[in-house]
């Protein structure tokens, strides 16, 4: 048998039907659902008189537009259109009999944090959600990717997806990371190197010593942004850390089933000599703490660099870079460390897990913020509770941060957490697009430790100077 990649193995284990032209029906093990991209899909089912084929494999949670302030369980404290979407998810979950975590449940949170936390996400699975950051679940060695609403409806009705296989890409991060360098710096640096279309048509497998050394939280951060590199999905082969993370979670297998599962999961790795269509290798020691300067996640530079000029680029990127510089109100040649910020946002499916909050709190301990506002939005109610138990919440509050309830919040600003026009934000989220955090708002992406450092100085800051 010819050697297979991890992607090949998971793919082959899920093909329910293959047509002559290679179009496959890929069976879906877990379908995560949120309030924004699902109402039209459920409506489609109703119109056609169809049921959810596997309600026991379908999990819903409101996250995108829920407020992150107290009292949000009262619809009067939401905008009318947001309340309608949440109410629709509520009634659809009941009508179709799917698992549901409402905002009143401590387990509610960002769908990509809740899935792994509750043990819904396990190695070797196929996982989809009407959200591009579904790539997050690839950290478990699960084939996970975002889909549109029509595909949400397709999965609800058939538990399959019509797919053609992607190509295999390997991203290897060799050696050790330097102090102050995190999973976020890895994933941003990869996108900086390959571009936002560098992964288009591929599924990426991240490997190498620096990836192995990451915690599960860090691996989720890396895979989360595979989509920003254009890839359909990101994968990391499961190992003992993965099994340890999954063990004992509410929906993870127990007893003999656990043993059988682990035995299978141990077969999920890329065979020696398996073919990759594209290989990117980055030395871990070459990665610095980075920030984005522009309006594309590929606009990545080490914090020690200066703002580039449009003329530093080629082709269509010249115009795009100029547009970014104008939008971000930045002058070429300015040291990134001189850029003053107004707001700090720590949270999102990229960096809203307990380890992220620990890293930020570690920098903030005993310090005060020097920005207009700063907020921490834990990725789930359970992350929030744990951070309170560990004393992290008090560190954030003492420093001057707002301590919020779980949700997507200012990552995409569908709820009231938004930037004002011209406001500049150090954010731990995943997208710095024009208007992403609010019309006219300016976003610099970075790690939680870097965002915490920026909160203290009021400028983009090299966290290594605070360590």
């Amino acid at each position, binding site marked *: 048998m010819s050697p297979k990649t991890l992607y090949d193995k998971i793919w082959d284990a899920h093909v329910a*039907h293959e047509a002559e032209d290679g179009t496959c029906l890929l069976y879906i093990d877990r379908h995560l659902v949120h309030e924004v*991209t699902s109402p*039209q899909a459920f409506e489609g089912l109703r119109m056609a008189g*169809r049921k959810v084929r596997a309600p026991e494999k379908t999990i819903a949670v409101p996250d995108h537009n829920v407020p992150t302030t107290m009292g949000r369980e009262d619809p009067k404290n939401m905008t009318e259109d947001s309340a309608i979407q949440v109410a629709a998810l509520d009634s659809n979950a009941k009508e179709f009999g799917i698992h549901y975590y409402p905002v009143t449940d401590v387990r509610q949170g960002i769908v990509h944090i809740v899935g792994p936390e509750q043990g819904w996400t396990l190695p070797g699975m196929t996982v989809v959600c009407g959200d591009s950051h579904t790539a997050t679940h690839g950290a478990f060695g699960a084939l996970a990717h*975002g889909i549109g609403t029509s595909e949400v409806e397709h999965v609800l009705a*058939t538990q399959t997806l019509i797919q053609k296989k992607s190509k295999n890409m390997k991203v290897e991060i060799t050696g050790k990371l330097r102090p102050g360098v995190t999973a976020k710096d890895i994933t941003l640096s990869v996108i900086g190197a390959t571009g*936002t*279309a560098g992964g288009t048509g591929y599924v990426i497998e991240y490997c190498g010593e620096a990836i192995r050394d990451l915690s599960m939280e860090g691996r989720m951060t890396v895979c989360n942004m595979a989509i920003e590199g254009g890839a359909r999905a990101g994968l990391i082969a499961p190992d003992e850390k993965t099994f340890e993370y999954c063990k004992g979670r509410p929906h*993870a297998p127990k007893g003999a089933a656990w043993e059988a599962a682990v035995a299978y999961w141990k077969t999920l790795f890329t065979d020696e000599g398996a073919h990759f269509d594209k290989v990117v290798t980055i030395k871990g020691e070459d990665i610095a703490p980075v920030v984005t300067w522009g309006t594309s996640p590929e606009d990545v530079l080490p914090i020690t660099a200066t703002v580039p000029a449009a003329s530093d680029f080629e082709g269509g990127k010249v115009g795009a870079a100029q*547009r970014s510089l104008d939008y971000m109100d930045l002058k070429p040649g300015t040291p990134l460390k001189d850029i003053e910020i107004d707001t700090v946002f720590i949270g999102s499916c990229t960096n809203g897990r307990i380890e992220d909050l620990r890293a930020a709190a570690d920098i903030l301990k005993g310090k005060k913020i020097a920005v207009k506002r700063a907020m921490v939005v834990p990725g789930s109610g359970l992350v929030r509770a744990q951070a309170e138990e560990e004393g992290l919440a008090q560190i954030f509050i003492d420093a001057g941060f707002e301590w919020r309830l779980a949700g997507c919040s200012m990552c995409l600003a569908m709820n009231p957490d938004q930037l004002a026009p011209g406001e500049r934000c150090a954010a731990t989220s995943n997208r710095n697009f024009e208007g992403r955090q609010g019309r006219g708002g300016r976003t610099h992406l970075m790690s939680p430790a870097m965002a915490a450092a920026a909160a203290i100085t009021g400028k983009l800051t090299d966290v290594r100077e605070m360590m």
Partner: protein
Amino acid sequence: MQAFTKLSGIAAPLPLVNIDTDMIIPKQFLKTIKRSGLGVNLFDEMRYDDDGKEIPEFVLNQPQYREAQILVAGDNFGCGSSREHAPWAIADFGITCVIAPSFADIFYNNCFKNGILPIALPQEQVDVLMKDAEKGSNARIEVDLEAQTITSSDGEVFTFDVDPFKKHCLMNGLDDIGLTMEKASAIDSFEAQASAARPWV
């Protein structure tokens, strides 16, 4: 779904790379529980000022492009979120064909579910069509899905690739779900075999 076969129409030029789905339809318009009515907010932040007034320079506000049925754009069109509101807004505006050097994966797939044909062409061919598009109503571009050709206003013909299954569905306006349900027995037997092999799933 609306079928797509042939189209002869005016193309709007949008020569920007990395046009993301937040640009195509900003998040405040995702709070709908319908698929229709989003065309008026297509490219909202580029199209309207802070007071909601049209920005006259923006391409779709110019008289010659108000009826555009084709969009010609830069590399990596539709990157970012999976929101199907992006193709819904494009289709609702009246655009049913987008031409660019490359597309983001999820957006590309979403187009085919909504009667929109996304066409990826080499940069130099997109450049020719971009020049055509800049001529406004003086230039009509023809798209023939059956023949897989695009004809510029000067009669230059480019061929394009499209997945045969996606082409078949788009040309006939077919509902994917109905087609998949015809294969229910294959799904049933897969499910039985998979739950025996991996009972913990």
